[in-house]
């Protein structure tokens, strides 16, 4: 730990004071200095030649930055809905008891700091936590005690592992406890793949023919929105620009999704080749992998894979053996913000700024990263592209339903006996999936994560595909004994925090929805309140600027639609019930005066 101004000088120098590298500079400073103090922020601003408040704006935007002091050990315990189902609250108590600290305490005492975080992409092995970039899965009280004892004894975090992961998680550069839990292999992602072949097949065609093949396959984006990938590449190819970019969205922030993590671990060559195919198709010479901060533990491994691909000619000059096609890929780390999965917010973040979505038009295909035409695609979409190059578009279009071709990777978690990754053909019903993952008798299934749809058993016969039950991959099974309102509450708190804060309906509206929801759940609501709650959901969905706000009311909105009875059971009779609780309001003063409150009806 050196003098702050030296630390900052070194970090800024390493990135040549390039303002688009602000996130990297901040991360380095935090790593060396331990804390992003006001002094450190001012020093960064000075070196990077921006105003102090601009640096502060970036620091306070990202969950893993913040001005809070970091300890020698910083524990980020996941509190997403499935983590709560699996007992993270109890785990938290053990952490607190053993360390003597409390979660969220920013006072800066002690060498172990405890913070909450939301969804770290390990829903199938909860409760889990990140300690100094190392993943700790399937936590139990006993394991926590051992970890804390090791921290107290100043042990290395890597040395605290209590089990091995599977597959490439055991690679020397990963060495993580994380499990892939691949339960079902399909013919697109998990069929055998020989590195180098997909790009070779692509560059034997013209870029136009590659795009045509993608169009024939009818493959749609796997990140959630379902936009046809061939069309997106076509637009980007046709956009004018002296430089173009291909960007891989590996932010994987939707709670309950973890399939991209498994692709990054097991199929990185297939992914990177898909990016090169995209680069060739749109005319880009640079690719960017935007990797969520939670997956930092994969970075060295992915860098090595890229290095190997450069060595064997798949990347770099004359990539894939194609004369004149030069293509390379860089990795850009995120810093903890769900909204950065939104493609234009991702671009802003990759340019070193707060991850606030952009106004459209212009679309990224017109003006994206560094103002140049950019195609942002999901991890899985690129893998589909690789397979389509090998097997052909018609082969791909043979699988699935009318509107949804091919297979889909599902991340299944919650109340089922076999959580994990399932590669299924589009068109599978929820019932069939529940049978496979052993989640029979579920009360509800959350399809597509919190921003998706929470369905009741009457819809379990519906099909998983874009035109019916659309999902970016997140499937959360909610068992009979769960309080559905706890899940909804957890999701809404998530959105209140993860809103970028830019626009009124999302920033203020989600807070107001949560209030109203609590009023009803606590038994203070009437039929009028329920009606208003539903209307307010529509207002937030309609008026919000980006996909986050346009879907954030869904936990409430879809449960009112599908579980109206649960809400109605909570309502008071009549049109009006006072929100003012007289007994509660006078409780303290009565105690001081030694009286009992005299309130009507009490």
């Amino acid at each position: 730990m050196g003098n702050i101004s030296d630390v900052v000088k070194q970090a800024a120098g390493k990135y040549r004071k390039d303002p688009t590298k602000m996130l990297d500079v901040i991360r380095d400073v935090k790593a060396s200095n331990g804390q992003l103090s006001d002094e450190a922020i001012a020093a960064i601003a000075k070196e990077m030649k921006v105003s102090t408040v601009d640096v502060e704006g970036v620091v306070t935007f990202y969950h893993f930055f913040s001005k809070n002091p970091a300890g020698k050990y910083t524990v980020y315990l996941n509190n997403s809905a499935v983590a709560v189902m699996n007992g993270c609250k109890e785990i938290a108590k053990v952490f607190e008891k053993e360390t003597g600290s409390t979660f969220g305490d920013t006072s800066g005492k002690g060498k172990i700091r405890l913070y909450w975080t939301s969804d770290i992409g390990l829903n199938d092995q909860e409760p889990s936590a990140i300690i100094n970039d190392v993943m700790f899965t399937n936590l139990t009280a006993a394991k926590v005690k051992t970890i804390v004892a090791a921290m107290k004894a100043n042990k290395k975090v890597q040395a605290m592992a209590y089990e091995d992961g599977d597959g490439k998680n055991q690679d020397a550069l990963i060495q993580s406890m994380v499990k892939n839990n691949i339960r079902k292999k399909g013919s697109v992602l998990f069929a055998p793949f020989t590195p180098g072949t997909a790009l070779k097949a692509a560059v034997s065609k013209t870029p136009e023919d590659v795009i045509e093949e993608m169009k024939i396959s009818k493959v749609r984006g796997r990140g959630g929105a379902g936009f046809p990938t061939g069309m997106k590449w076509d637009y980007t190819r046709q956009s004018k620009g002296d430089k173009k970019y291909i960007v891989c969205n590996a932010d994987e922030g939707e709670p309950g999704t973890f399939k991209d993590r498994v692709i990054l671990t097991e199929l990185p060559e297939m992914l990177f080749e898909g990016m090169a195919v995209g680069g060739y198709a749109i005319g880009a010479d640079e690719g960017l992998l935007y990797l969520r901060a939670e997956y930092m533990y994969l970075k060295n491994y992915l860098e090595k894979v890229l290095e190997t691909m450069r060595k064997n000619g798949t990347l770099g000059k004359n990539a894939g053996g194609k004369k004149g096609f030069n293509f390379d890929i860089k990795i850009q780390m995120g810093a903890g913000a769900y909204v950065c999965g939104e493609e234009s917010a991702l671009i802003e973040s990759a340019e070193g700024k707060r991850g606030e979505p952009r106004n459209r038009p212009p679309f990224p295909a017109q003006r994206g990263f560094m103002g140049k035409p950019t195609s942002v695609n999901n991890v899985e979409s690129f893998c589909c592209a690789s397979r389509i190059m090998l097997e052909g578009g018609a082969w791909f279009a043979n699988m699935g339903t009318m509107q949804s071709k091919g297979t889909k990777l599902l991340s299944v978690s919650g109340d089922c006996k076999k959580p994990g990754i399932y590669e299924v053909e589009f068109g599978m019903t929820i019932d069939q999936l529940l049978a496979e993952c052993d989640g029979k008798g579920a009360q509800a299934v959350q399809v597509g994560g919190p921003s998706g749809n929470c369905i009741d058993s009457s819809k379990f016969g519906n099909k998983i595909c874009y035109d019916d039950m659309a999902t970016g991959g997140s499937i959360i099974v909610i068992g009979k004994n769960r309080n559905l309102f706890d899940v909804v509450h957890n999701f809404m708190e998530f959105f209140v925090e993860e809103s970028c804060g830019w626009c009124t309906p999302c920033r203020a509206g989600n807070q107001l929805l949560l209030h109203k929801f609590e009023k009803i759940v606590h038994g203070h609501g009437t039929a009028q309140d329920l009606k208003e709650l539903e209307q307010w959901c529509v207002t937030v969905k309609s008026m919000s600027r980006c996909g986050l706000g346009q879907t954030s009311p869904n936990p409430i909105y879809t449960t009112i639609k599908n579980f109206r009875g649960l809400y109605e059971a909570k309502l008071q009779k009549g049109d009006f019930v006072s929100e003012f609780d007289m007994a509660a309001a006078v409780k303290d003063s009565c105690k001081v005066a030694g009286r009992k409150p005299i309130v009507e009806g009490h």
Partner: protein
Amino acid sequence: MSDIKFTIDGKACKAKEGQSIVEAAKANGVYIPVLCHFEGLKPAGTCRICTVKVGGRFMAGCTTPVAEGMIVENMTPEIEDMRKAIIEMLFVEGNHMCPTCEKSGNCELQALGYRYQMLVPRFPYLWPVREVIADTPRLYLDRNRCVQCLRCVRDIVTADGKHVFAVTNRGDKTLITIDTKLAAKLSDEMALKAMNQCPVGCILRKEVGYKIPVGQRKFDSKPIGSEIEGR
């Protein structure tokens, strides 16, 4: 360049290529309420009050360019009620005590509240705790009144291109802030510009106040929007 033809609530309108729906409407004497929009600044689309409906989809009129043949819905009961909801959200999200506010009568949020006949917001007050920043020589920031329009962020920039204002945090904690060091060096003219730029009573000039008495202020006699509608 030929004119673009489009309609707003059935009224035939003409626009120039590249104009936003809001600008084009204004040029045709149609008022679309705005708050974060300020002529001459790059639109940010933060407040969403200018939301209109085109082809069944809601979009912000200040950030969406007009296009040939566009059919714009503006003053429908559905849209107007949602706009009113946005105004109410802005009131409950901050702490607005109009009778004690220097901006009263000149305030665009207050004026919109009047125009939309907001009596009591439909939402509960959130009563956030927000610190006032007063340690700059010319300005003070009463952040209780900020509507996060980002006009100050977009417009108040030093000669060497540094932002004097910026947004910090995110979600429900999003908050405007000012670089006190840079603010200390602001010229009188820039300080005044910052205050006038702010649609509400968040950025205020120290030492001068109530120069124009309440009752004779901008919106005291005519409602907001009347300058466009010619009422």
